[in-house]
C-alpha cells in the first residue's frame, strides 16, 4: 500500500505534514484504511457499542417477534431520558478522571424538592423547576468544593453525599413517602404523553431533517474554511458518508417513532442538551480545559488553568444534570417517591457513560456516550421485560454489560499504551 510508507514518521521528509491529508486524498478507501488502523491502535470509538446494540436487537428479536416493534422503540426513547441525563453529568466528571456517586441520591432529592415546592407550597411550577435545578447545582458545587479545595477524594465526598442526600430526601417526603405531582410545567413536558408538535407526523421528520442538514452545513463550512486556510480537511466523500449514516439513523428512528405516537418531548430536550454539551466540550475553551485537567493536572496548572475552578464547576454541572434527571424520572410516574434515590439509577448512569465509550481514566470521551449507553441499557431492559424476566436477572445482565464495557475500556487503554498512545 503506497499510503503506508508516506505516513511512517521516520521516512517523512521535510517539516510537519499531516498524513491524513495524504491518506484521505485516496477518498473513501483511504478513510477505511485509517479507520482500521485506528481500531488496531486501540482507538475503538463508538464501534463496540454499535456492534453491541445490533447484537442485542438481533438476540431479542429472535426470542420474541414483538420486540422489533414501534412500541418498544417508543418505550426505549422515553425511558432512557431520565437516567441518560444523569449520565450526561457523569460524562463531564469522568472526563476529569473522577467519579460522582451522588447523582442518584441528588436526583431523588431534586424530585422531592420539586414536589414539596410545587405541590405542598404551591410555588409556580417553572419557578419550582428553577429552584430545584439550582439546588442540584449548589449540591454539586459543594461536593466539588470539598474535593477541590479541601482535598478529600471525590469518591468519598460523593459517597457521603449519596447517603446524606438520600436522608434529606426521605426527611422531605415525610410520612406519606410519596407526593403526587401536578401535570403542569416541566413535569407535563417530560411526561409520557407529551410529544413534539403534539405527535404530528411531521415533527419527527422535521427533527431528522434539521439534524442531517446541520451536520452537512457544519461539515461543508468547516471544509471550506480549512481549504482556504491551507490545512487538511475532510474530503467530500467522508462528509457525505457521515451525513448518510446519520440520515439512515435519524429518518429510521423518525419513521419508527411515528408508527407509535411520535417523538417524546423528553427525548427532544435530551437531544438538545446533548448537542449543547457536545458544543461546550469540543468547541469552547472551557471544554478544552476539562479535557486538559483530565489529561494532566500539572500541565493544566502550568498552562494557567485554575484546576479547582474546573473541578468545582464540573461537579456543579453534574449536580444540575442529576437534578434535571430526577425531574425527568419523577415525570415518568408523575410522583416523587422514596424510590427516587434508587441506587440502581446511579449504577445505570455510570454504566451508560462507560458503555457509550467514555473512559474511566479521564480525558477521553464524548457526551454522546450517554445516549449510546442508554440505548444499550434500555434495549436490554425492554427485552428482558418482554421476556418476563424479573429484576434479579435484569440486574445481573446490566452488571455484566457494565463489566464488559469497563474491560473494553481498560483493554483499549492497554492497546493504546502498547502502541504508544496513552
Amino acid at each position, binding site marked *: 500500500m503506497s499510503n503506508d510508507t508516506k505516513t511512517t514518521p521516520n521516512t517523512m521528509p521535510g517539516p*510537519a505534514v499531516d*498524513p491524513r491529508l495524504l491518506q484521505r486524498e485516496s477518498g473513501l478507501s483511504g478513510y477505511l484504511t485509517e479507520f482500521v488502523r485506528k481500531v488496531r491502535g486501540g482507538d475503538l470509538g463508538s464501534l463496540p457499542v454499535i456492534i453491541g446494540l445490533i447484537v442485542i436487537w438481533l438476540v431479542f428479536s429472535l426470542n420474541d417477534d414483538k420486540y422489533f416493534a414501534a412500541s418498544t422503540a417508543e418505550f426505549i426513547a422515553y425511558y432512557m431520558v431520565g437516567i441518560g441525563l444523569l449520565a450526561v453529568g457523569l460524562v463531564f466528571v469522568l472526563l476529569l478522571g473522577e467519579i460522582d456517586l451522588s447523582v442518584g441520591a441528588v436526583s431523588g432529592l431534586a424530585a422531592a424538592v420539586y414536589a414539596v415546592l410545587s405541590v405542598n407550597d404551591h410555588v409556580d411550577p417553572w419557578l419550582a423547576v428553577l429552584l430545584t435545578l439550582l439546588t442540584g447545582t449548589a449540591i454539586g458545587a459543594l461536593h466539588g468544593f470539598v474535593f477541590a479545595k479541601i482535598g478529600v477524594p471525590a469518591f468519598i465526598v460523593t459517597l457521603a453525599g449519596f447517603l446524606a442526600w438520600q436522608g434529606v430526601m426521605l426527611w422531605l417526603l415525610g410520612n406519606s413517602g410519596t407526593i403526587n405531582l401536578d401535570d403542569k410545567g416541566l413535569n407535563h413536558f417530560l411526561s409520557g404523553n407529551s410529544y413534539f408538535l403534539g405527535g404530528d407526523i411531521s415533527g419527527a421528520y422535521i427533527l431528522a431533517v434539521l439534524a442531517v442538514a446541520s451536520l452537512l452545513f457544519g461539515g461543508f463550512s468547516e471544509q471550506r474554511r480549512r481549504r482556504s*486556510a491551507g*490545512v487538511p480537511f475532510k474530503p467530500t466523500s467522508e462528509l457525505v458518508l457521515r451525513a448518510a449514516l446519520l440520515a439512515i439513523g435519524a429518518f429510521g428512528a423518525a419513521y419508527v417513532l411515528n408508527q407509535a405516537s411520535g417523538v417524546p418531548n423528553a427525548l427532544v430536550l435530551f437531544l438538545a442538551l446533548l448537542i449543547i454539551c457536545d458544543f461546550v466540550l469540543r468547541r*469552547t475553551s472551557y471544554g*478544552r480545559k476539562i479535557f*486538559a485537567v483530565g489529561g494532566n493536572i500539572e500541565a493544566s496548572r*502550568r498552562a494557567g*488553568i485554575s484546576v479547582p475552578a474546573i473541578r468545582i464547576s464540573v461537579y456543579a454541572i453534574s449536580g444540575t444534570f442529576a437534578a434535571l434527571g430526577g425531574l425527568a424520572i419523577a415525570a415518568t410516574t408523575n410522583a416523587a417517591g422514596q424510590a427516587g434515590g434508587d441506587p440502581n439509577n446511579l449504577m445505570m448512569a455510570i454504566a451508560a457513560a462507560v458503555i457509550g465509550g467514555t473512559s474511566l481514566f479521564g480525558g477521553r470521551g464524548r457526551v454522546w456516550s450517554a445516549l449510546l449507553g442508554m440505548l444499550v441499557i434500555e434495549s436490554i431492559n425492554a427485552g428482558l421485560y418482554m421476556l418476563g424476566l424479573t429484576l434479579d436477572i435484569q440486574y445481573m445482565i446490566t452488571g455484566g454489560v457494565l463489566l464488559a464495557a469497563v474491560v473494553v475500556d481498560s483493554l483499549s487503554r492497554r492497546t493504546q499504551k502498547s502502541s504508544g498512545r*496513552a
Partner: protein
Amino acid sequence: MTSAPVLALRGVSKRFGAVQALTDVELEVHAGEVVALVGDNGAGKSTLVKTIAGVHPIDDGQIEWEGRPVHINRPQDAQHLGVATVYQDLALCDNLDVVNNLFLGRELKRRGTLDEVAMEQKARELLDTLSIRIPSVRIPIASLSGGQRQVVAIARSLIGEPKIVILDEPTAALGVEQTAQVLDLVERLRERGLGVILISHNMADVRAVADTVAVLRLGKNNGTFPVQQTTQETIIAAITGATENAVTRRAARTAEAAK
C-alpha cells in the same frame, strides 16, 4: 556581545530557611546568546531558574530586563516580560493533540468559540520554521517519542513570543538522535534572536551549542567562560571548585597507569 543584555541578574540572593541557596549571583543573557548554566547537584541552578521564572521571588539583589530593573514575584510577571520556561517534566497533556497542547491556556478564538483552523495553521507555521518533524499536528501527544515531545514542549514555550527561553535539562532523558534534534532546535532559537538559558550536566551538549558557560558552585558564581576559548578541564575545575578534584585525580591515575 556589546549590546545591553536582555536579562541581567545583579547580586541576587535567595534563602530557604537555613539554606542560603543563592548568594550574590550575577548572570547576563543577551539576545541571540545561549548561556549554559552548569554546576554540581545542589549548586542552585534550578533555584536560579525559578527566581527568573517567578516561582521563587528573590530576597536580595536586582533583576534587570532590557536595562530596566523589574520585579518578578509571580510566574505571570515573568511571562509578561517574555520569559518562557520548559521544565524538566514536560507537562503536556497526553490525551490532547499537538495543536491543542501548543495553544493550551491561550487558545485562539473566533466568535467566542475555539478557532481550530487558525490554531492548526499557526502551529504548522511554527513547527515549519523550527524544522520540527512530527507525523501530524493532529495526533495525540501520547503517540510521540520522547524527543518529539521535548521539541513540542519547547515550541509551546514560543507561542507567547518570549525573548528568553529557559530549558531545564532538556536532553537528560533522550537518546543520541533525539538529543541532536533538541540541540538543533536550540540553535534555531538562537538564530531567531532569542536568549536561551540551558541547564545541562552534559559537557558535550554544552560545548556543542552554548556561547557562554556560567558556573554555579554552592550558590555562588564560580566563573563565566566563553565556550570557544575554554578547555573542558577549566570548566570542570570551576564546577568542582578545585584544580585538584576527582576528575583530575582520575586523569592523573590513568596517566600514571599508562606509563
